[in-house]
């Protein structure tokens, strides 16, 4: 079949939180149990952090400076210093590119689901672009758009489209036929069916796609800032590497990790609110 490739389900990439909710039954946890859970999940990172601090404090290696210095540098650069403009530049490009890519992905995925001829016709192209390593296109983007902000947003958007698009398509295809029969039986009409059934039914999978797109957008954001750029966190880190300032490199990495983690948590927070029906119904199913 011509659309066999896209037929293999895009596995909803589980995170540790999902694994935890799956294997530990959900009970009304006592305060003591919650505290215990917190300690168990936090002791290792705390220990590792402390280890890093103490081991590196006496380090003489140029590549692994003391953690205290790194944190100092990070603070002076990004909190009180003006390197924070790099952060804003990065986030701006990220936001524009991600939203654009996500929208195109969802709309494209819906169109591909709805019109079979479209899907069959574009299947090889879509698949090809999906497996193409997006960073390979960066120089091409430079040729097309110059070295301004447009090129960065363009590449981020390009990369962000595919996971969302394919997961949207897959999510819609995975909706039970019985629900469509029900919609017909209730005479819902095409528009209402699309919004009340198709989007809602596919939303868990679309969310998974959006999550994957988030990761891709983040990576591309950094990549675009490391080639022919003038600002951004990626630029900051690369510049630091060029002048052999490993403390700055580390500081930049830490900034990036913070941003990445915050964005992820924000995403998960919003997702769990919007898809609360999904997570709660699964929790019930597993208890």
């Amino acid at each position, binding site marked *: 079949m011509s659309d066999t490739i896209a037929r293999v389900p895009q596995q909803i990439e589980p995170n540790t939180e999902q694994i935890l909710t799956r294997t530990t039954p959900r009970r009304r946890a006592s305060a003591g149990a919650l505290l215990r859970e917190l300690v168990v999940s936090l002791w290792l990172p705390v220990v590792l952090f402390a280890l890093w601090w103490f081991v590196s404090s006496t380090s003489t290696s140029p590549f692994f400076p003391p953690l205290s210095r790194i944190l100092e540098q990070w603070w002076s650069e990004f909190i009180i210093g003006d390197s924070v403009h790099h952060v804003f530049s990065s986030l701006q490009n990220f936001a524009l590119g991600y939203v654009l890519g996500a929208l195109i992905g969802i709309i494209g995925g819906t169109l591909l689901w709805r019109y079979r001829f479209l899907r069959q016709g574009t299947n090889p192209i879509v698949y090809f672009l999906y497996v193409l390593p997006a960073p390979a296109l960066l120089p091409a983007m430079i040729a097309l758009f110059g070295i301004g902000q447009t090129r960065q947003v363009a590449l981020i958007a390009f990369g962000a489209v595919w996971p969302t698009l394919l997961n949207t398509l897959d999510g819609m295809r995975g909706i039970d036929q019985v629900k469509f029969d029900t919609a017909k*039986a209730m005479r819902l009409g095409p528009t209402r069916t699309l919004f009340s059934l198709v989007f809602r039914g596919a939303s868990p999978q679309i969310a998974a796609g959006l999550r994957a797109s988030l990761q891709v957008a983040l990576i591309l954001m950094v990549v675009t800032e490391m080639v022919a750029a003038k600002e951004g966190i990626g630029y900051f880190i690369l510049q630091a590497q060029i002048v052999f300032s490993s403390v700055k490199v580390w500081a930049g990495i830490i900034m990036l990790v913070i941003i990445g983690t915050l964005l992820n948590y924000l995403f998960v927070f919003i997702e769990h609110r919007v898809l609360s029906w999904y997570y709660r*119904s699964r929790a019930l199913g597993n208890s």
Partner: protein
Amino acid sequence: MSDTTTRKAHDDIRSTTADVPGRAPSPVLSVAGLRKIYNEGKPTAKMAIDDVSFSVNKGEFVCIVGPSGAGKTTLLRCISGLAQASAGDLQFEGKPLTSVPEQLGLVFQDYGRSLYPWFTNAKNIGLPLTARGMPKAERAARISEVLSNVGLGQVEKQYPWQLSGGMQQRVAIARALSYRPDLLLMDEPFASVDAQTRFDLEDLVLRVRRELGITVVLVTHDIDEAIYLADRIVVLSGSPSRVREIVEVPFGHERDQVATRASDEFLQLRRHLLDLVMPHPSSAA
């Protein structure tokens, strides 16, 4: 509401006239020479239904039974408008049936897959009402009314998956009834619940039919259930289906799970139907 009281009065009149044999009102559903072939024209063509004819009058309760694979569900899909018949004449309230009619309610066997888990019970039930443009306040009133019809209390704000199987099916029935259809089609609606709940739901459907004066066509593989519920039973033969016999069930509207099922007439009908439905090694079915 004066609306409901006049309706109830109407229903009383309707049900009494329907009880009188020979005074049949116009049929809600009429099926003549229905035929359904899958993959028509291709080498994999399969005739699921050969020739089925029957009609359903207003206020009647008709059950459709038959051996496994007899195409009962296919039949239901054709008469509901979800599937296109290959040949035959289908009429709903005197008009030819080409798509799902507005005054038709449908209840599927698998409530778990039919109810939308992302909507609350209230939103699920209100979905067809929203599609018909009913304003919000009226919708809310209708939802609580129909929920009490099916014997459910305050479950509006909950989600279907928070309820038990039997309650979920009640929600599904409520959803089908919310826009007051003239005909209720049910496809093995109680096959996925346990026996005790099944009896409760059977009585519920009978009560709903009585109170709302609605016509019901129910497909089931359970002979006992068919006899308990129906006024008439359409017995299908094995695939490709034809109507083997239409059996009259003379119990009237007052039925009791224990008394009715233990009566002699019930047992006679049961024997007769089992004979029709069960495969016989001797006869050429």
